[in-house]
């Protein structure tokens, strides 16, 4: 069998090369993309470590210093764990790699909420708060801090200089590393271990890092058992642990069972759950690539075998068993696979290494962050290529066995025909009706072309599929990329809060702390700034009837958050009179920012004149975890009742909206429009988790002032004019807002630059992949169509002998190419609009949850694909046509 397989490979060199090339390209694609995706995931993890700290879990314990035994217990555990780490000792079911301790020694509330924190060296390392300048604070009046905290405290001095905080004087002994810009939500002043030792209580936090080669949730469970740590005392660093099996995943059977049996379950639930628990997108993409590769290999191999079908039938007549023929085919495939797969892997990874740095972060799921005032993802931080050996081995095993199946399937197609049929060739056309075409005045050359094409419908479908697959992938990728671009720009402005380079906000629990209009005017006077948008804020409550609340589950989940419970008595509260009160952010936007909201429009219209004339508001819809939007079944022109505190300087309890009704102003508004996101967002009240999409109403700045008397501003966004010196602008803004109590300045320039750069690379990559897939399918098309023309080589020879000119022959074959191209165009058009686009829309809306699916494929791209299809088909048939025309007529007839 092996000898026969080798002989066939030697004899059919070009076909052997085609099969080898299809295996090689599959391996290139598989290794390249899987490595890239895996590397991006690993790089994501590294980025997350930079942003969120290199720790997995932390346990918080309030230790009463008076109860000595508690404290000593805590100390004992800490020392024991540190000892284990030092000795690299394995615990029962877990291995601790690092352990660090932080102690909260006190807190300042004026001018901001600032914590006095002691952290040991290990903790500093894990939380990326290492000292970058100066020395550690030791004495009671010594502190170290990051630039962000110092800048916002108005400190312009250097190490050794003093700061006055709440009447106490502190000496700055060191500068610590700044944290990620978008993630800054707390200000810390680092102090020595002895700081505030006389205080009554302190909060201890233990940070842990386990062995990442083992599943984290398994180690955590073992650790909790060993030290009797209750589950609610443990907090996971989710941005890290999500990559390392930080939580026990639900079984696939359970997921499907839930989706089928629970009323909340649906198909989207399954997809999203598989994505979060089993990295569905990564694994799914690899499976699709494998199937695509296998389809190409099968098709190329099938064509190769169909050329020698008659020979195999002949061999069978000579007594060679079907098993031997199957074995020969499988050996042939395996030999080529064993040569092509490793070479493809090497080639794929080599290509990736060549352009890896440019493609880094392509599959990352979040912005590559930038630390305050600096870039994190510098070239030096490039985490490199990580080869997913497990995936590559799985691909090898899958293809190895799949190729055996391909061999058997091919033999089955031979078996379907009798031996004489196999030797005689196709006779399918005889089943058709038998008109005399020449009597109908038909062009017989056209008839022959058509009959050659459609004599075997399966082959035609195969060719049209191959012709279409590249185009479809290209169209889908373009559609996805175009929408990704729109989504990224919108998410950039709304979810990431990176719509403007500079942001000044008030860091305070009191809505009375605002930025005066005069400061806004001063900012507008800064020549280097453009689009200075100032927004006003007040917290409110939407009152709706009980039956209007369609998403009970949604708010039940939100209500669970202890932060909302403690501060506001929950997000959605039963008022007891048949209504619910839902806490809302109520914003007043600048006209420019209201205009920008049009991009986010779901329903209704945004007309500035009407908004003010008719006292209208814009409502931000709620979005569930599956990408669905809802606004309590209300629509534009419906009316909403909104309550806000009467006094902006109200006590904290008034914000629970359960005080006496005299404490509130209640007004009705007409809904002008419903949008998917708010732009300028507060981050002190409801929107405290990094740029979450909390429920909001938006009106113009004039309306919020007219209705509720809000005159001061809470948030200012601004962008630099083109070519402005961005470093100087930061200083100018800081100078402007320095005297505004509790005003905080943030510079997102680096983060925006990183994000834009990342988006460009991502678009480029997806287009690149589409082109590669197009090339692979092109290779397959060439092979299939080459075969389809050469299969009728003898007949073309006869026609030539009958006196058709070369031009006539070319025209005849050209017709075939054009027809294939046009059929593929129709097929692409139909399948793209009827199936692929719908699937893509579903994926983008419900799985990756793009903000708006508004982009369509540019007509030019569509036209290009259509023309390209015809061109490819024509090229694919004209190459063999040229060979036939150049061949000797007698030789052709004798074939």
């Amino acid at each position, binding site marked *: 069998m092996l000898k026969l397989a080798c002989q066939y490979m030697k004899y059919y060199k070009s076909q052997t090369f085609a099969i080898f090339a299809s295996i090689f390209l599959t391996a290139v694609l598989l290794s390249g993309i899987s490595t890239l995706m895996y590397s991006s995931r690993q790089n994501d993890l590294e980025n997350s470590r930079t942003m969120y700290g290199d720790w997995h879990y932390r346990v918080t314990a309030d230790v009463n210093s008076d109860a000595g035994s508690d404290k000593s217990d805590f100390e004992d555990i800490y020392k024991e764990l540190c000892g284990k780490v030092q000795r690299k000792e394995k615990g029962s079911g877990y291995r601790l790699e690092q352990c660090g301790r932080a102690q909260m020694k006190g807190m300042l509330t004026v001018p901001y909420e600032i914590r006095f924190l002691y952290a040991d060296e290990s903790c500093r390392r894990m939380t990326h708060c290492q000292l970058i300048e100066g020395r550690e604070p030791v004495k009671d009046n010594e502190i170290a801090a990051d630039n962000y905290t110092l800048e916002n405290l108005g400190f312009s001095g250097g190490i050794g200089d003093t700061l006055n905080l709440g009447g106490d004087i502190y000496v700055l002994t060191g500068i610590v590393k700044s944290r990620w810009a978008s993630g800054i939500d707390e200000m810390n002043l680092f102090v020595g271990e002895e700081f505030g030792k006389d205080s009554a209580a302190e909060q201890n936090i233990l940070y842990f890092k386990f062995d990442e080669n083992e599943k984290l949730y398994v180690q955590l469970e073992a650790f909790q058992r060993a030290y009797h740590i209750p589950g609610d005392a443990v907090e996971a660093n989710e941005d890290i642990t999500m990559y390392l099996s930080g939580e026990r995943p639900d079984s696939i059977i359970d997921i499907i069972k839930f989706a089928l049996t629970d009323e909340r379950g649906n198909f989207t639930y399954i997809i999203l759950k598989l994505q979060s628990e089993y990295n569905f997108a990564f694994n799914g993409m690899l499976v699709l690539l494998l199937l695509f590769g296998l389809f190409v290999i099968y098709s190329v191999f099938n064509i190769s075998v169909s050329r020698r079908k008659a020979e195999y039938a002949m061999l069978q007549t000579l007594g060679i068993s079907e098993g031997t023929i199957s074995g020969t085919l499988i050996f042939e495939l395996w030999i080529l696979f064993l040569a092509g797969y490793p070479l493809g892997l090497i080639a794929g990874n080599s290509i990736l290494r060549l352009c890896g740095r440019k493609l880094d972060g392509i599959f990352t799921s979040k912005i590559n962050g930038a630390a305050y005032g600096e870039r994190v993802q510098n070239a030096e931080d490039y985490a490199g290529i990580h080869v997913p050996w497990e995936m590559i081995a799985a691909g090898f095993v899958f293809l190895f066995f799949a190729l055996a199946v391909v061999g058997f399937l091919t033999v089955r197609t031979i078996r379907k025909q009798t031996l004489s049929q196999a030797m005689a060739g196709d*006779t399918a056309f005889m089943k058709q009706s038998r008109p005399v075409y020449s009597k109908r005045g038909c062009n017989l050359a056209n008839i022959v072309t058509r009959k050659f094409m459609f004599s075997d419908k399966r082959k035609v479908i195969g060719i049209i599929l191959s012709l279409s697959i590249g185009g479809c992938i290209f169209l889908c990728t373009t559609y996805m990329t175009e929408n990704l671009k729109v989504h990224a720009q919108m998410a950039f402005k709304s979810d990431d809060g990176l719509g403007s380079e500079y942001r000044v906000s008030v860091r305070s629990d009191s809505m009375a702390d605002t930025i005066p209009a005069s400061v806004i005017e001063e900012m507008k006077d800064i020549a280097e700034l453009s689009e200075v948008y100032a927004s006003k804020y007040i917290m409110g409550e939407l009152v709706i009837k009980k039956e209007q609340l369609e998403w009970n589950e949604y708010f039940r989940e939100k209500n669970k958050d202890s932060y909302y419970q403690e501060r506001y008595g929950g997000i959605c509260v039963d008022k007891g009179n048949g209504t619910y009160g839902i806490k809302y952010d109520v914003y007043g936007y600048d006209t420019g920012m209201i205009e920008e909201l049009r991009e986010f429009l779901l329903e209704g219209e945004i007309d500035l004149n009407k908004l003010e004339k008719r006292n209208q508001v814009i409502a931000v819809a709620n979005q569930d975890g599956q990408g669905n939007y809802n606004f309590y079944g209300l629509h534009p022109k419906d009316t909403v009742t909104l309550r806000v505190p009467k006094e902006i300087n109200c006590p904290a309890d008034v914000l629970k909206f359960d005080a006496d009704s005299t404490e509130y102003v209640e007004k009705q508004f007409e809904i002008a429009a419903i949008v998917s996101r708010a732009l300028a967002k507060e981050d002190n009240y409801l929107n405290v988790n990094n740029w979450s999409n909390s429920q909001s109403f938006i009106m113009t700045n004039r309306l919020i002032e007219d209705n509720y008397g809000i005159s001061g501003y809470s948030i200012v966004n601004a962008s630099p004019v083109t070519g402005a010196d961005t470093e100087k602008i930061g200083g100018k803004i800081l100078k402007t807002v320095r005297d505004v109590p509790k005003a905080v300045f943030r510079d997102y320039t680096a983060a925006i630059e990183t994000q834009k750069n990342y988006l460009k690379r991502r678009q480029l990559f997806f287009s690149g992949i589409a082109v590669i897939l197009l090339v692979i399918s092109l290779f397959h098309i060439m092979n299939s169509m080459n075969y389809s023309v050469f299969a009728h080589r003898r*007949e073309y020879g006869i026609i030539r002998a009958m006196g058709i000119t070369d031009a006539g022959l070319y025209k005849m074959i050209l017709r075939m190419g054009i027809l294939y191209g046009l059929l593929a165009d129709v097929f692409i058009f139909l399948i793209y609009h009827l199936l692929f686009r719908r699937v893509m829309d579903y994926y983008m809306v419900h799985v990756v949850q793009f903000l708006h699916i508004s982009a369509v494929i540019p007509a030019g791209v569509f036209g290009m694909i259509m023309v390209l299809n015809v061109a490819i088909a024509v090229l694919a048939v004209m190459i063999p046509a040229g060979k036939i025309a150049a061949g000797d007529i007698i030789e052709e007839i004798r074939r």
Partner: protein
Amino acid sequence: MNILELQHIEKIYGVKENQVRALHDINIQVKEGEFVAIVGTSGSGKSTLLNLAGGLDTPTKGRILVKGKEIDSLSRKELTVFRRRNIGFVFQSYSLMPVLNVYDNVALPVTFDRGRHVDHKYIEELLRELGIWDKRRKYPAELSGGQQQRAAIARALANRPAILLADEPTGNLDSVTTIEVIGLLKASCKKYSQTILMVTHNEAIAQTCDRIIHIEDGRVLGKGFVRKHFFSGEGGEVPC
């Protein structure tokens, strides 16, 4: 009048040590209306000679004149058109288009020349003459060998060519069908005043022709004989 003239034809295949001289100084003249048999052993060069005469191949040396026109001087396209209009081919393996029925197979070469203007009366006459009118809707694979060869003859005659070149037209047929096919060829030769050049290795068939040209090792042996009785009804052979 000579309708076909081959002057000092040489045909060499291959190069250097692989060179094979298929034909050597061949000189043949064929008169209009003649039915000539070319006989010889396998590999003697008879099919090569026929292909050269039909313009399907080009000679290494020498001139070929068909209806007084030197076909070597024609361009590729001119040669194709000339061949289509003046020469009909009948092959041993019938070489019918498997995807077309008998009628369309016969009409096919006409459509190359005259587009859609097919003389359907003539095709019907041909098919009736050849006894396959009732098989006109059948595909080649559904016909017997003799029927397929009849269809091939009809196709060769469809353009009313001056010369019909038949390469072993009975090679795949049984003896009864062979006689039928040869009879048909002769009949059509007479009816349409056509010149037929037929390659065969069957001496008995060759004996029924007007003239026999023997080829061995690429050379013509003698000049052949004219059988008088076929057209004139008289018996005996005279050298031409």
